[in-house]
């Protein structure tokens, strides 16, 4: 009688210990996709969103409009972008993951699709109407299955203020020589020609690398390089760095210690004349200066190289383990519709172009210019980390910032970049 309770407690303890230890386990195995056929389970469809506050309005409206249709309820979970980006693998590999996610098209999505973590949405695509082929390719896995629904894309350009350029007596350059001449002219008047905020956003330097490589070696080489089929230590990439070195005298010498906010404020105050940025930069310019803001296409270096532009594409994907695949697909179908996309881009303050060509949009002058520029390009790429995979961004940041600080060390920088990129790939 005396030891009975002990035995019971010991048993209870053992059960608790086992349960607790199992809960503490980190699963290091790849999970097979769950069977997603059959009826949806009850409850809300969970939508994880990484949109910033400036862009949040659009997605909130989208969810509200969908819920009003009465097909089911979507619950929006907004998470800060940086947390979201690092947590995404945890969400997707979890045993009970959220159902739908905002994400980037291309390699960034393929990384997850290759592990069987994403829902096949090819039947959604069947009913989506006329989306451009380029967007379809960006939404596919290597074997041609659609796993992504694009909502919008945006352009990159060299931003400047019209009044500032007038004051300095320069006009937007179109060729590399003109660009360097404009930089020279601006600098001669005591204004710093180019700025970047690299101390907290080192990835902005990749925009320069991407564009220089696209203009010198073309889109195919660029993508092959980012895929690991070409080497950073090659003569082609050395050419890119030679052109990059030509711009260094015109880049604010303080960029490595300047935050994105500081660089933006230097730019808005006319201390720096040009800033290579994505369309998302527009809302961070003071409101009374937005009409004065303009951009020009990244200058052409070699006229024989077909023009390629960066057009990062955003959209949605769904987890393969969702227990509400029917509702998820009907939500994604709605997301692809012209009305939904029109509402979504409107909420993003005119800095995105709807992926659906039928979506009605009131494009302002800059958006129209961006759209024309992308449509006339022979090919579009996304952005360094989206084409190469997120894990490659670290080595790129280190190489590019070190080059800005010490251009003489280009040989060792490129060798190190190549070996760091290989190491990241071998870990994948």
């Amino acid at each position: 009688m005396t030891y009975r309770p002990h035995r019971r407690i010991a048993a209870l303890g053992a059960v608790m210990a086992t349960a607790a230890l199992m809960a503490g386990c980190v699963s290091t195995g790849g999970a097979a996709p769950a069977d997603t056929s059959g009826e949806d389970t009850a409850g809300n469809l969970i939508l994880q969103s990484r949109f910033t506050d400036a862009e949040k309005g659009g997605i909130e409206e989208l969810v509200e409009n969908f819920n009003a249709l009465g097909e089911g309820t979507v619950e929006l979970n907004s998470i800060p972008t940086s947390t979201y980006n690092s947590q995404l693998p945890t969400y997707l590999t979890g045993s009970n993951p959220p159902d739908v996610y905002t994400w980037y098209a291309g390699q960034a999505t393929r990384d997850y699709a290759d592990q069987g973590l994403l829902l096949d949405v090819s039947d959604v695509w069947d009913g989506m109407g006329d989306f451009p082929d380029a967007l379809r390719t960006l939404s596919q896995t290597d074997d041609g299955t659609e796993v992504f629904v694009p909502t919008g894309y945006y352009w990159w350009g060299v931003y400047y203020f019209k009044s500032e350029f007038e004051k300095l007596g320069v006009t937007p350059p179109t060729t590399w020589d003109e660009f360097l001449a404009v930089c020279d002219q601006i600098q001669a008047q005591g204004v710093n020609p180019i700025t970047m905020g690299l101390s907290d956003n080192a990835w902005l330097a990749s925009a320069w690398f991407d564009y220089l490589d696209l203009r010198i070696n073309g889109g195919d080489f660029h993508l092959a390089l980012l895929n690991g089929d070409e080497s950073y230590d090659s003569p082609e990439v050395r050419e890119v760095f030679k052109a990059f070195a030509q711009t260094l005298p015109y880049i604010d010498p303080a960029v490595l210690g300047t935050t994105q906010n500081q660089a933006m404020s230097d730019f808005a105050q006319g201390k720096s004349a040009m800033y290579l940025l994505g369309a998302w930069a527009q809302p961070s310019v003071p409101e009374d200066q937005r009409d004065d803001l303009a951009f020009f296409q990244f200058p052409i270096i070699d006229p024989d190289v077909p023009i390629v532009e960066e057009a990062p594409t955003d959209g949605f994907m769904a987890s393969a383990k969702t227990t509400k695949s029917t509702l998820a697909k009907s939500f994604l179908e709605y997301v692809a519709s012209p009305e939904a996309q029109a509402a979504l881009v409107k909420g993003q303050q005119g800095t995105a172009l709807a992926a659906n060509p039928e979506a009605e949009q009131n494009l302002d002058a800059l958006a129209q210019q961006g759209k024309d520029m992308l449509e006339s390009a022979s090919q579009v790429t996304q952005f360094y980390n989206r084409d190469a995979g997120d894990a490659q961004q670290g080595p790129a940041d280190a190489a590019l910032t070190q080059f800005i600080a010490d251009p003489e060390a280009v040989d060792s920088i490129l060798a190190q970049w190549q070996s760091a990129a290989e190491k990241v790939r071998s870990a994948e």
Partner: protein
Amino acid sequence: MTTTALPRGRRRVGFPPPVVFVLVLVPFLIEAVGVFWPAIQGISLSFLRWNGIAPAESAGVQNYIDLASDPVFGTALRNTVIWIVLFGGISFLAGLGVALLFQSERRGVGIYRTALFLPIVFSLVVTSLIWSAFFQPSGVLNTALEGFGLGDLTRVWLGDSDTALYAVIVAALWREIGYVMVLFIAGLKGIDPAIMEAARVDGATAWQRFRHITFPQLRSVNLVVLSVLVIDSLRSFDIVWAMTRGGPYHSTELLSTYMFSTAFESRSLGYASAIAVVIFVLALAVIISYLVRALSEEKES
């Protein structure tokens, strides 16, 4: 008086009451799940190649071999040593210094103590914002240097690989010194004033009083302060991450920031775990060697 102790033969040697088991088991389980298990998992992860998405592959000791030839790891290790020596050393000396300065109750001393302790009240993110603004290319420091006619000394403090680490250490020190001061003041208050008085009467100089009375009397506080400083040095992460993210080009990388970026940005969880094991071994080595010394000193005395 009668003895209440039970006769030897009748004392029960069996189990303690069940509630004791519960009280021991429950905290142990929480600890096992929250601390021991992840730590053991971290060690086993360090022998894998895993990106958090694909199935993990066994890598043997390859991660450790790679670490040995990784130049960024070398920089991070060197910076961590510099950090322990400078951050730990200066915090100790400066904390002790200001504690001696502000230990006695004089008019207005509270203001100085509060001013020194204030930085610890701010969150680290705020601290890093204040100091980033201070070190900005057109920030307070460069403006002041120019104002004093020392324009040649202006620099991009956080963007220059020669100065960035030291600039971050200054920010970390600003926060730590007030905390160490409070620990030392508490220790100084515990010293019997009579001993000091006796020394003074015997004609001991201020230095002699410090060397032979104050410092030896602070031995137990020193142990606490040094442990706190070593632990704080090795876990320093937030201030570096918030101010430079380990950059420019890894020049302010500490083992902790390198571990974090390897795990969550480069997605090499196995490699990052190997770095974590190195940090763990390092912390253990420092603490054990210190404890051994402290214990042997105690035995001698």
